[in-house]
């Protein structure tokens, strides 16, 4: 239960995936005609929910550091919004046909998520942060899923009829692989690294951080204004 409380959005997403799949099977068996609409609705909602999971991952990445605690969230929201407007929206508005619009949206949303993960990892690397096993596993699983999705959707967009059957198999395989990584990574709860794993040079009172940040800014501003 400990780990569910720590990653509530992620477990909600898993619950959504599980319940959604059951509902999809029921629709497929009993209301076959409605299945395509139900599938796309479920699929589009899952793309949006995945952004929420990314926000949760980004929060956990920088959690122990008060100065950059919101950095992950800021990066995730700004990249989502920026690429959403200039990269994802045009494909919805200007694609020829619903099929292309949906595939284009899925492909570009996957690329946007990959860009967010890349930016988060670059920021984490820049500050020399050590990742905990749970968060690293979440990122790895998501990355495998996104990587396979990018190739799948681009292939489907170009070889639509030839690739349709392969996509039907590849998407569940990618998701199963992703779930396996998540299962291993989240099997046991690994707490946030304690002080022993933190930098010895950074052992200072965290309450003094806002004042230190302000002081650095003041000194630099003074230098720039000379």
């Amino acid at each position, binding site marked *: 239960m400990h780990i569910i409380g720590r990653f509530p959005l992620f477990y909600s997403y898993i619950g959504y995936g599980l319940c959604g799949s059951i509902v999809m099977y029921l629709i497929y068996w009993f209301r076959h005609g409605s299945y395509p609409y139900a599938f796309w609705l479920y699929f589009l909602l899952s793309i949006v929910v995945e952004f929420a999971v990314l926000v949760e991952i980004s929060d956990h990445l920088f*959690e*122990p*550091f*008060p*100065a*950059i*605690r*919101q*950095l992950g969230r800021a990066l995730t929201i700004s990249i989502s919004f920026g690429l959403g407007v200039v990269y994802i929206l045009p494909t919805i508005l200007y694609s020829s046909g619903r099929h292309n619009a949906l595939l284009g949206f899925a*492909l570009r949303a996957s*690329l946007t998520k*990959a860009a967010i993960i*890349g930016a988060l*990892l*670059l920021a*984490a*690397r820049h*500050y*020399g*942060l*050590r*990742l905990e*096993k749970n968060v*690293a596993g979440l*990122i790895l699983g998501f*990355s*495998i899923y*996104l*990587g*396979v999705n*990018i*190739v799948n959707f*681009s*292939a489907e*967009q*170009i*070889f639509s009829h030839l690739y349709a059957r392969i996509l039907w198999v590849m998407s569940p395989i990618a998701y199963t692989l992703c779930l396996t990584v998540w299962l291993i990574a989240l099997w046991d709860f690994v*707490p946030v690294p*304690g*002080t022993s794993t*933190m*930098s010895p*040079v*950074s052992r*200072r009172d*965290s309450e003094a*951080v*806002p004042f*230190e*940040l*302000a*002081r*650095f*800014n003041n*000194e*630099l*501003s003074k*230098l*720039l204004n*000379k």
Partner: protein
Amino acid sequence: MMTLIYAAIAIAFLILVIGFLRKALLDDPDEALTEKSYAASVGNGRWLDLSERIFDPSDVRWLAEELAFPKLAKILITERRRLAIRWLKALQASFDEVVRTPEIIPNDAVMPASTGSWQMLWLTVRFKLLVSYALLVVRLFGPYHRLMPSIAWIPFSRESEYSLRREALAHSRSSR
């Protein structure tokens, strides 16, 4: 062709992620940081005096104009530029060290929804932008270039400055 490009992007992305995660899980994060030089203490007066000396052009002018050693003055400028870059990098490394200060919270406790965390993020981003800008200016124009662009050439600014001075003068006269 497009599929190949996307496949290349996906493979590059996965390699990047696996590489980063491997390093983040296995490496000691302090290894990279120990290589950096830190500012001894920004609050330390001697450290700030050093910046005053590095960014002060008076001795270069003295060397070039009063003693008439322009070549030596040029060498001094090159050395000062190198020192200024090192000073700014050390300042940045010390700032990063402050940023990496962890807040110790028991695992059972919920992270505090600090209202100041967005402000702290702003201070962090602001500092990063300013120091990158300062490094760029020092690299391109040297340590004695004005770091903040002057707006004195804009007629409006000169006029407004003049009117502000005039108002201040009038105010001081009327208060006598």
